Structure formats: C-alpha cells, structure tokens
C-alpha cells in the first residue's frame, strides 16, 4: 500500500486505492443556520460510510454552504465530499472556495453542473455557468497536479514563496441512463480524461440498463482508470416510485419494482429490501468500486441498509 502515492490522502481515496468496496452517502445541509440538524444527521452516518457528500444548494434551493456544513460534519467525525456546482459561482469564486475548503481540511470535492435555478426557490436569479462540470474537474486537477490556477498562475503567494496547492480527490457525477445513451459512456471518458478520480452514478433502479452501461464502460477500460460508485436510493412508497419513473429526467423504474411496491404490505420496508438486494447485486458487477447511498432526507435509514447489505463494519485503511 505504502508504494502508491495518494493524491489527497482522504479516507475515501485510501479505501478505493486499497481495493476495498467503498460506501458513501449524502447529507443535505439545513435550510437555515441550524447546526443541530447537521449533528443529528452526522450521528446517523458516522461509522456507516467512508465519506459523505455535502450537497451544494441542491435542487437550486438555498441551504447552508456546503463547505461550512462539511466542516461542521467533519467536527462530528465524518469525512465530507464537498459538492460544487457551476450554477452559482464563477471560476474566481470556485477556486477561492477550493483553497478555503482545503485549508479547512476538506479533501474530497465532487463537481456538478447543478440543477437549473428555475427548479428552486430563486427562479428569478441569474445563473453563472462560467464553466461546465468537466471543465471544473480539469481546473481542480490542474490546481492539484500542476499547482496552477485556471489562468496559469502558480498557486503561491509570491515568486519566492512555496507552492501550496489543494490536494483534492476529485469526483464527478455519471448518469448511466441519460440521453443520448451511447454518449453517457463518452462523457464518463471525458470526465476521466479531464481528471476525475471517481464518479458516483445517478440512482439505479433499472439494473439491466446499468449492466449494459457497465459493459460499455468495461469495453473502453474506463473502470480501470476511474472508480465507479453505484448510486442507490431506497424507494419509500409507491408514489415515490411512480414519481421517479415519470418526473425525474433520465431515470427509469422498471415495472417489476413498481409491482413489488404496489403489492407490498409495508412499502417502506419493501423499498429497503429492494435497495439491499440491489446493493448486493451491484457489488458483484465487475468494475463497480463502491456504493453511493442517497437516502433523501432519511439519513437514519442508511446504517440499517448498509448493515443488511453486509457493508459494515467499514474498514480502517491507513
């Protein structure tokens, strides 16, 4: 292990590099300055996953900054993966925030385009999109590896001062179900070449389509160059299943799952059962390096799921 030089030294990186099956989850910052909620959510996730995504104004609704919430989560013993979207900040603000986040101890950053602001609570705002997620990945990679900013300037205070660049484990999102389908794999390749170390996928319900995608990924050998964490979101109700199927772009929920949710006595339990089965299945797909459990506003359920799927205890890798 000691021979490999780590890029960031984060726990997530160490788990993945050591070849262990990784588990990440998600923590949505509060829609207020309330710290308690973060503590409560963090307590549920502690020891259950290797790192936790801290969302960045998710669905374009204003929440506590992901860096601030990430630092608070860190104090509670979690390792954060800070999400950064391209919607709200330009290249100056994002690079400044990356320096700040690193200085505060953050080691994982996930780059996203960001949901359009029209979905959120400030639909009349102006968006930025100075760059896209792939360009952002590349900016981070150059900051880390070449120790330069996007403009080419070196990351140092003055000519004589030492280079102090953020050493970040760089993530991105992948959508195995997006359109145009063949291009989904192309985009994964672009993210990898831009410098992403890992990707977390959109939540998976359609196992067949995901398997087909993974096949294409393996054909290109991408799974050997980037860690792929498969996304899982437990269904809570039939309504949620139908909503996911009908209203979430690029997400298909197969009929047999809808049927199971329909006939279940306790749909919530059934949803968790499905999620556990999926996680066990995903684990066996070659090239899948980990699971990303997104239990939307249900951080409490993650521990149980991970337990049942046999993902606990989490390894300690140094």
């Amino acid at each position, binding site marked *: 292990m000691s021979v490999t030089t780590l890029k960031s030294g984060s726990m997530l990186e160490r788990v993945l590099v050591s070849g262990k099956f990784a588990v990440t989850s998600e923590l949505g910052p509060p829609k207020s300055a309330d710290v308690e909620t973060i503590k409560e959510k963090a307590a549920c996730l502690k020891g259950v996953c290797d790192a936790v995504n801290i969302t960045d104004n998710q669905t374009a609704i204003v929440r506590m900054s992901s860096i601030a919430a990430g630092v608070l989560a860190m104090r509670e013993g979690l390792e954060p993966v800070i999400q950064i979207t391209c*919607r709200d900040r330009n290249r100056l603000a994002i690079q400044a925030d990356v320096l700040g986040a690193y200085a505060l101890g953050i080691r994982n950053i996930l780059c996203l385009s960001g949901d359009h602001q029209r979905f959120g609570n400030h639909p009349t705002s102006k968006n930025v999109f100075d760059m896209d997620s792939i360009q952002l990945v590349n900016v981070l990679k150059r900051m880390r590896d070449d120790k330069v900013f996007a403009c080419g300037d070196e990351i140092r205070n003055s000519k004589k001062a030492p280079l102090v660049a953020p050493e970040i484990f760089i993530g991105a999102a992948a959508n195995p179900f997006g*359109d145009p389908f063949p291009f989904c794999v192309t985009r994964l390749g672009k993210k990898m070449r831009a410098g992403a170390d890992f990707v977390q996928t959109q939540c998976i319900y359609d196992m067949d389509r995901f398997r087909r995608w993974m096949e294409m990924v393996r054909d290109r050998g991408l799974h050997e160059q980037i860690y792929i964490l498969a996304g899982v979101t437990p269904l809570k109700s039939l309504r949620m299943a139908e909503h996911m199927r009908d209203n979430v772009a690029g997400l298909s929920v197969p009929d047999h799952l809808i049927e199971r949710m329909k006939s279940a006595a306790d749909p919530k339990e059934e949803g968790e059962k499905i999620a556990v089965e999926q996680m066990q299945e995903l684990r066996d797909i070659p090239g899948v390096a980990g699971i990303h459990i997104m239990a939307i506003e249900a951080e409490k359920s993650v521990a149980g799921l991970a337990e049942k799927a046999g993902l606990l205890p989490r390894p300690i890798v140094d």
Partner: protein
Amino acid sequence: MIVAERKPFDEIFANAGKHHKVLLLGCGTCVTVCMAGGQKETGVLASQLRLASREKGVDLEVTEHTITRQCDAEFFDDTTSRLVEESDAVISMGCGVGVQFCSDRYPNKTVYPALNTEFFGATLEQGVWTERCAGCGQCIVDKFGGICPVARCSKSLLNGPCGGSADGRCEINPDVDCAWQKIYDHMETLGRVDELEEIQPLKDWSHNRDGGPRTVRKEDVRL
C-alpha cells in the same frame, strides 16, 4: 434579427399619461419582421392609446411615425426630428438599441421603450421566433454541428449534455429542445461524433458582454 415583444399596455400607458403629446416611433427593420414594432404595430398601439385616453379622460395626443431603422443616424430625417420636437416625449417601438439611439439623438426628450427586447433569433414559423445566438463574440458553432450550446443549452455547457436531458428535451421545460441532443444527432449525421470526445477548454468570456460593452471598428470603411 433582434426579436422583441410589446410591453404590457398598462406600462406604456402609464408612461404616456405623464405627457400631453407623445410621438410613437416605429422601426422598419428587425421589429417589423418579428411583428412587434413596425408600422402596423405602431398603428395598433396608437389606436389603443387614443381609445384608452378618451375612455379614461386623459388628455393625450398621439402622433405615429415609422422610420426605416432606429439604429442608424441617417434615417432620423428632418420630418422625424420635427415630429420629435413637437412632442413632449417619444415612445420608441424599436429594440433597446433604437430606444437608446433615439434618446441620444434627442437629449432634451424622454424616450420610453414600448418593447421588451428578447434575443437574437430566427423565425420558426409565422408568429414563432426562437433564440439562436448569444452574441458571445467568438463563434464556435462549427464544433457543435452548427448548433450553439452557449445560446441554446440552458446551462451553456460546452461539454454537455447534463444529466437532465431526456427524450431530446431539456430539463428546464419539456417544450425546450435539449441543445446537446441536437448537437449529438447532428454530429452523428455528419459522421463526426468522435469529435465530441474532445474536451472543450474554458471559454474566454472576455469577448462576451462580460468584457464590458463592445465596439466593432472596421477601419477600411471608416470616414
């Protein structure tokens, strides 16, 4: 062409009502084509203003006049200048450029906009116009099968699509085409999909309006 849309009547009427004699100045170029501020639309608005002022007991005299272009000094002829001078204020039916040009020309008159200027676009079918160009100052459409991601992708992604693209539609609205689906399809038709593997670098927005208001100088034709 520049595509515009008429402002709500109440907004125009409220401005007109601050004066007794207004000149409604139409424009014969882009806004005539997009049926927002040409001679016909000037006539319609003039009639509406006359009716409304009579109905509401407002003392308002409306004069109509349309010139070929409000963004070129040469079309502001003596007749136009006389009509402007005889009025208390001008309501321009030109795009935002026309309004300002007119305002510059007649510094002692308030010029009100009658239109909301929307975008640079094309006619899809009669009565429907759509945005095609964002005037970014550095055209790159050749790389994207002739489809501009800056103007037509809701997030201006140069390495799209985002995860929201579904069935050829953009995540923001099922009535909006996903520019990236179109780019992909067109590049496929051209047999150039592999070019989309290239990572597009950060865009230089300094040629865009972000670099400040822009001026074009063509030295060989300057006097």
